[in-house]
Each structure stands twice: as C-alpha cells, then as structure tokens.
C-alpha cells in the first residue's frame, strides 16, 4: 500500500485532511470523516477482485470506466452506491483526487452523463450525490453558443460543465437545483439584497422570463414587486408568479 499526499503521523486521527491510499493498482481509498469510505477506480479491471474488507454495503465506489452489467451487479452487492461512466465524462484520477481533498468538494463536479431519453444531464458531485438538470435549462448564450449534449465533460477542475463549446458554471447549476447550496451561497456572499423583490428579480432573470410574461399580472406590478414597493404580494399573485417560474411560492425568497 502506498500513501499519497501526506505522510503518516502520530496525529492521524485528528488530521483535518482526507488521506488517500492506493490499494492494488490505482484503486484509491479515502479515509476521513464524512468522506470516509469513498473508493475511486480508473478501470473496471481494478475492481474485479476487490472487496472492502469488513465494510460490506457501507462504502461507495466511483469507477471512471464503463462497467458491464454483471460486474455492476457484483459491485452493487459490495458497495452502498456505485457510480460509473466513461472518460472524458469524468475527470482524470488526479483531478478527482484534487476535488476530493477540496474544502467544497461536494459542490464540485466529478463527472457528467447525459440521458437522451429523459433529455437531462446528470452531474456526479464530489460526494457522489447526483444533480439532474433538464436540457431546457441550458439556454444558448448571447454569443449564439448552444449546448451540444453529444460532447460533454467536466472542465475547470470541477467548477464547470462543458457541452460542446458551451460552458455552464457549477455555481449556477447548484444555485438553480440545490436549495441547501443556495442557502450556503447566500451566507458566503459579502453583501446581498435578501429582500423578496431582489430574489424575485434574480430568479426571473435566471429563468429567462420577462416581466411581460406573467399571466394576469402586469409588467408594472412585477417591476413594483422587484423594486420593493410592494413588500409582499397577495397569495394568488404569489402563486401565479411561482407557477410561471416553476418553483414553489416559498422557494422564491431562497434565490
């Protein structure tokens, strides 16, 4: 076994950084607190004779390679979660290692997969949680760059998703699809207008909806709400706004 990143030391139980161990060839284990039990392998072959001793069903496995169905079933019996897929949909092993030691590891992308049948992009995050983003969310940019769902990869060391020549930041994706991330992002901001109006404006712009597009609500009324001239809209107005923006009424203020 070869230890990477940090030498063994007498304080290893309290060492605040995750530690990687290479077991056999290229199969890495991560042994620290909330990231404990996450295994990464760069090929299907590396996993064939491997068992996480004494930890049946508790550890999780990421394989940056395609697994055939029998092997996937075998591994699913050993691990609580198995994620696999071909490169370049996943970062290289070295880049994955850098993501996993990052403080914000759960907010970085390790891989991205496309479901043509469901017209959705599945992003595998640093904690192996998956975030699903519909194709429709990836709108063409003002420069005319459109997403190409046949050519996907993670870029900028996990900070962005590339779809052909088009790039979307993980920050925008998680802000749109992960309520916990939104709450944390707002705490990180040095200054932010947390009013209902400002949140409505941020959400409306992000969804690409103009003020004219709210059924039964005038453009002027939306502008007044966004400027804070109306502190809180009526229930029916709030419901109509939320329906148009595709969120729950109570979620508007989280944006």
């Amino acid at each position: 076994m070869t230890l990477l990143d940090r030498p063994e030391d007498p304080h290893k139980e309290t060492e605040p950084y995750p530690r990687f161990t290479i077991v056999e060839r290229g199969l890495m284990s991560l042994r620290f607190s909330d990231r404990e039990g996450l295994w990464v392998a760069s090929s299907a072959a590396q996993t064939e004779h491997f068992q996480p001793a004494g930890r049946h069903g508790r550890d999780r496995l990421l394989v940056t390679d395609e697994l055939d169905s029998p092997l996937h079933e075998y591994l699913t019996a050993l691990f609580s979660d198995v994620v696999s897929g071909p490169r370049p949909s996943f970062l290289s092993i070295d880049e994955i290692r850098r993501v996993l030691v990052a403080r914000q590891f759960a907010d970085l992308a390790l891989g991205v997969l496309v479901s043509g049948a469901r017209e959705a992009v599945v992003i595998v995050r640093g904690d192996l949680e998956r975030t699903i983003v519909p194709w429709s969310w990836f709108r063409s940019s003002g420069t005319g760059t459109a997403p190409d769902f046949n050519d996907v990869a993670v870029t900028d060391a996990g900070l962005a998703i590339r779809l052909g020549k088009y790039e979307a930041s993980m920050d925008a994706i998680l802000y749109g699809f992960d309520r916990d991330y939104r709450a944390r992002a707002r705490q990180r901001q040095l200054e932010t207008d947390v009013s209902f109006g400002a949140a409505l404006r941020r959400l409306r712009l992000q969804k690409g909806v103009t003020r004219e597009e709210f059924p039964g609500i005038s453009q002027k009324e939306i502008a007044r709400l966004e400027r804070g001239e109306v502190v809180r809209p009526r229930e029916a107005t709030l419901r109509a706004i939320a329906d148009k923006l595709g969120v729950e009424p109570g979620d508007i203020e989280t944006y």
Partner: protein
Amino acid sequence: MPLQLPLPERLSNEGWKVKIYDNERLEPPHATVIRGNLAWRLNLRSRQFMDREPDPRDVPRELRDVLQVEHAELVRLWDRTHPGNPVTVAEDWL
C-alpha cells in the same frame, strides 16, 4: 464558448483564468476568476469581490490590477454573453 480575458503570461502559467461562462448566475453581472478548483466572483457593477470564501485577498495584486484595467472589456464581454441582464441597469430597476 465562454469568453475569457487574456492574462499576462506569468498569471496564465500559474493557472489563473478569468471567464464569463455561457450559463451562470445572472444577477449581479460578474466575472469568474479561477485557479484550480477555486473560483472568485467579481461584481462588474461594484467592482468588488462578491464572496467571503475563497478569500479575495488570495487573488494576487497583479491580477486585481488587471481586473481594474480591463473592467470595460469585462463589461463588454458580459453584455455580449448575457444581453438580457446588462451590467448597466435598466432605469426601471433603479
């Protein structure tokens, strides 16, 4: 294609990038300063860094100077990429 600000060679060699992504949070308009898997967002209206983490002081002085000098170019790049929410705010929002 994301628009990227050309940087002095020394900063590029150190892995620094400044990008405006095709898809990102639109409000407020901002540029993203990147190194490895760290990202700093620079508000293009206030010219201030937007987040406590990572610490804005970790962006080297040389790069902060570039961002100030190239502010007009960053605004132009943002407005090209995200014409629905230009840096200069519409009157009805003020």
